[in-house]
């Protein structure tokens, strides 16, 4: 091993598989060929609630190429009484074809398998399914809070209280009491969900697009009562996940069909199918009450959030949790509540809780700044806590103030005139806004294997998932630094459940968790290789397991933070809102690869702009399904909407992480929508508390919207 001149971590490095991706050499799950491959196509319910009375399989079985039709009357039985790797029972939504009940529109009622994808699609779309339809209820609104209950689920506690909220509110010089809503939102990774399942030598082999092969192994083994060792899932390249790519109906249907037909079966979701099968973010109705001294110092912070789930699975969007690590106040009350409706199960969508929660909290902070006549940046600095505002725990590291100071400097915040609605440029009113962001910094146990090869190279084997984040490249840099060799001598193998247990790509904790294991393996290898020793032909391999080390982490408030700044232009005659520039400065641990890290931050901020101005799935109350569920109907920012988005960071190395990493996948979206909404207020003098800030809302907002 040679000594590297300086650390590779922190230097820009293009994706190691970048050339393969841009030349098309990289193969994704839906395009890898297998001999004898059959194609499945899901048929989805057209009613929002009821029972399947009859499926006319006869007429499609005679169509060209059709091999079988799986449905609740003939599909293999699956088990749902297990605990998934997430520590909770599986969403029964993935247990397809087990009963005749239809809990939402777009529920899988059959899988048609044929020789070609086209034949399967035509047959699935011709399949006549008759239903006994029942009245459905898909109406979500703040008015239904009375029917809701606090719900913990797999998330932090539903209800966290500290101090006497009402007393502190009563004693406050200024009280902000406002309701905010965010709509139903969908993650649509560029690569639709796709899987191919086949049995080979008694082993279930799955080539899949997911965020963690272990996750999918665990679920499929549980569902089909298999030894996890007899299931192998591979996922070499993944075109985005954002929380939607765990186990879903298509993988389960594909395994069923491969089992029944004894040949490989591929199932790919269409974009429209993703709008009922891939999960989504629940709409939220949030109420914030802030009580403060005249100078803006908080006495009371209340954040209540209502979200909704399906009738079959309790998943909560824990928006109120976003307020817990933010600001000091004598009284804190945060509560997440849930109602059940006849809709698909929601799931994790990038920054679950924090994304909608920060819109409400950081909008309310801006309203407080306005009322107190305190600069919004200064207001946040004044409320900076010394310890966790509710937990009382020390922070692992916290540099939110550094983010605001650096962001304000780069953005030119000091020249800002706080008065709203006074800057005009042609038909546009101009305004600027800011907001804070945060996201938990977590690490989860992982294992890694590291081989010193006889030719002087090193092979890292870790079951990481690169869902487009650049994880493979980051791990190459981490390994190269830990081994003190150039990246050319490091090869990283990921995306294969046979590589052993590791964290999935989620919770902004993938790269941190994997880097820990890789670093530990490298230390082990350096300890076991004598200088000048000859490496045998099979190499020298060591393994690591971070379970103990991660478990030994002291209890701390561990979060990434950030400060978002936005400048918008609003045409009050047409309601058009344009984000002219946006700057995000983050304190998110040590940045491994600035090139891909910037992509992550800017991508998150772009999500935030979309969330502020465009994204909204509209559910038809009478039909129970979505209106225009495709990428023509569900708008997100187009290129022309994203002018000048910049991201940067301040020093924030995590002292308790071997590499200093915190995690950057989600913090970029947090606070971004609030910064835009606050800028719209500054431009127009009108508060928008309901997302997205559409032209019609701007046009019809006489006073506050």
């Amino acid at each position, binding site marked *: 091993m040679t000594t590297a001149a300086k650390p590779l971590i922190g230097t820009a490095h293009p994706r190691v598989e970048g050339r393969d991706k841009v030349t098309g050499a990289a193969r994704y799950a839906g395009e890898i060929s297998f001999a004898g491959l059959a194609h499945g196509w899901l048929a989805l319910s057209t009613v929002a609630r009821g029972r399947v009375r009859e499926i006319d399989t006869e007429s499609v079985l005679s169509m060209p190429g059709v091999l079988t039709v799986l449905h609740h009357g003939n599909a293999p039985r699956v088990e749902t009484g297990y605990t998934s790797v997430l520590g909770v029972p599986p969403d029964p939504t993935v247990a397809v074809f087990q009963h005749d009940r239809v809990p939402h529109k777009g529920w899988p009622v059959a899988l048609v398998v044929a020789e070609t994808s086209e034949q399967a699609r035509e047959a699935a779309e011709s399949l006549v399914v008759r239903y006994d339809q029942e009245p459905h209820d898909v109406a979500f609104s703040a008015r239904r809070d009375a029917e809701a209950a606090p719900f913990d689920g797999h998330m932090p506690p539903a209800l966290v209280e500290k101090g006497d909220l009402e007393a502190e509110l009563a004693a406050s010089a200024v009280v902000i009491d406002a309701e905010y809503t965010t709509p139903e939102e969908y993650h649509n990774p560029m690569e639709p969900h796709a899987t191919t399942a086949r049995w080979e030598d008694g082993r279930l082999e799955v080539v899949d697009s997911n965020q963690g092969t272990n996750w999918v192994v665990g679920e499929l083994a549980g569902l089909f009562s298999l030894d996890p060792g007899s299931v192998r899932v591979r996922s070499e390249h993944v075109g985005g996940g954002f929380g939607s790519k765990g186990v879903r109906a298509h993988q389960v249907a594909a395994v069923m069909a491969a089992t029944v037909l004894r040949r490989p079966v591929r199932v790919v979701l269409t974009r429209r199918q993703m709008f009922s099968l891939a999960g989504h973010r629940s709409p939220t109705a949030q109420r914030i009450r802030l009580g403060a001294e005249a100078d803006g110092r908080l006495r009371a912070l209340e954040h209540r959030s209502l979200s909704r789930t399906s009738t079959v699975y309790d998943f909560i969007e824990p928006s109120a949790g976003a307020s817990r690590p933010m600001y000091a106040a004598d009284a804190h009350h945060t509560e997440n509540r849930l109602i059940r409706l006849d809709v698909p199960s929601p799931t994790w969508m990038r920054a679950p809780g924090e994304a909608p929660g920060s819109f409400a909290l950081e909008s309310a902070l801006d309203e407080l700044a306005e009322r107190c006549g305190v600069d919004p940046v200064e207001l946040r600095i004044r409320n900076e806590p010394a310890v966790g505002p509710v937990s009382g725990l020390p922070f692992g590291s916290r540099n939110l103030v550094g983010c605001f100071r650096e962001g304000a400097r780069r953005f030119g915040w000091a020249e800002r005139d706080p008065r709203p609605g006074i800057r005009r440029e042609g038909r546009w009113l101009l305004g600027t806004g800011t907001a804070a962001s945060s996201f938990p910094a977590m690490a989860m146990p992982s294992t890694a294997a590291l081989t010193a090869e006889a030719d002087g190279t090193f092979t890292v084997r870790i079951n990481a998932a690169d869902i487009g984040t650049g994880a493979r490249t980051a791990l190459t840099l981490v390994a190269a630094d830990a081994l003190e060799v150039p990246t050319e001598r490091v090869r990283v193998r990921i995306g294969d459940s046979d590589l052993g247990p590791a964290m999935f790509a989620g919770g902004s904790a993938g790269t941190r968790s994997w880097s820990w294991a890789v670093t530990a393996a490298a230390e082990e290898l350096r300890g076991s290789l004598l200088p000048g020793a000859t490496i045998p032909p099979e190499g020298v391999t060591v393994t690591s397991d971070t379970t103990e080390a991660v478990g030994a982490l002291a209890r701390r408030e561990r979060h990434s933070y950030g400060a978002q700044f936005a400048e918008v232009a609003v045409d009050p005659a*047409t309601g058009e809102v344009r984000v002219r520039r946006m700057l995000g400065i983050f304190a998110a641990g040590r940045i491994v690869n600035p090139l891909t890290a910037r992509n992550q931050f800017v991508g998150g901020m772009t999500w935030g702009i979309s969330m502020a101005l*465009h994204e909204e799935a509209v559910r038809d109350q009478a039909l129970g399904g979505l*209106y225009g569920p495709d990428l023509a109907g569900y*708008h*997100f920012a187009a290129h*022309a909407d994203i002018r000048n988005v910049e991201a940067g960071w301040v020093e924030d190395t995590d002292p308790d992480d071997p590499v200093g990493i915190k995690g950057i996948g989600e913090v970029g979206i947090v606070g971004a929508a609030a910064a835009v909404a606050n800028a719209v207020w500054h431009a127009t003098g009108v508060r928008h508390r309901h997302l997205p800030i559409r*032209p*019609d809302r701007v046009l*019809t907002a006489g006073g506050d919207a």
Partner: protein
Amino acid sequence: MREFGYRRALDVPGAVALLDGDPDARFLGGGTNLVDLMKTGVERPTRLVDIRELPLDRVEPAEDGGLRIGATVTNSDLAAHPEVRRRYPALAQAVLAGASGQLRNMATVGGNLLQRTRCGYFGDVSSPCNKRDPGSGCPAVEGEHRNHAILGASAHCVATHPSDMGVALTAFDARVTYETATGPGEIPLADFYLPVEETPHRETALPPGALITGVTLPPGATATAANSCYRKVRERASYAFAIGSVAAALDVRDGTVRDVRLAFGAVASRPWRAHAAERALTGAPADAEHFAAAADAELAAARPLPHNGYKVTLMRNLVVACLSELAEEAAR
């Protein structure tokens, strides 16, 4: 997907003969709308007659001094044509406001006029829709209709026509030419789209089996057309259909409106020529107050639904903004 026949036509009579009046056959231009609808099952043609090779891809001066635009001219070529940009700037702007560069490279003038509504209920075969499935009902009236019609709709259908190009063509009194087995014909664009009434599935006055061969812009009022603009408002900066648009042309002399053309997009089942506004404004002072009054004269007929009333405000504001811009331009 369902199998279908495909033939490529080489000349106009051949194309008409290949289609042979078959109601289940379709002409295929750029395919930017038809192919999407085939994928979603809204359109299920048994045969396609590809007309891309027809010699209808030219923009040429017409004998009467107007402009003749072939049916297979692409949106990109139309928007880039020097005569279009000089004499009918609103038309070039309208075309460029639509879709994306890739789509405009494929989409044709004839196909643009015949594209179908983007109403989400129409595009979802699991939903009722009187336009797609006559008699099944219109969920938009009680459901999602934020971007539906405020003018000329009926209880049977409140869908809007999605074309930007058609709005500018309507302002300029374009005429649609076509070919049938029995010979050529022509319809003013103003009469091309049928009123909605109880038959929203009947969309155009084109005879069965007819092939659109082109669009003719008349030479009249060239001074007006040359001072024209198109403004489109949508829910993002690009790549979305309008929630309201205006094509406006204005001839002002000495502060008085001599001639004005106004057409609205995204407010009706067809590009909406604002005759009442034009009448109100002709001969009136060219100022914001009279522009607003003219818009109000047109929008008095608006019958908004509970969630699309903003369009009345939007269209009024757009009319004032466009005409004010043109009046300033004329004064320069």
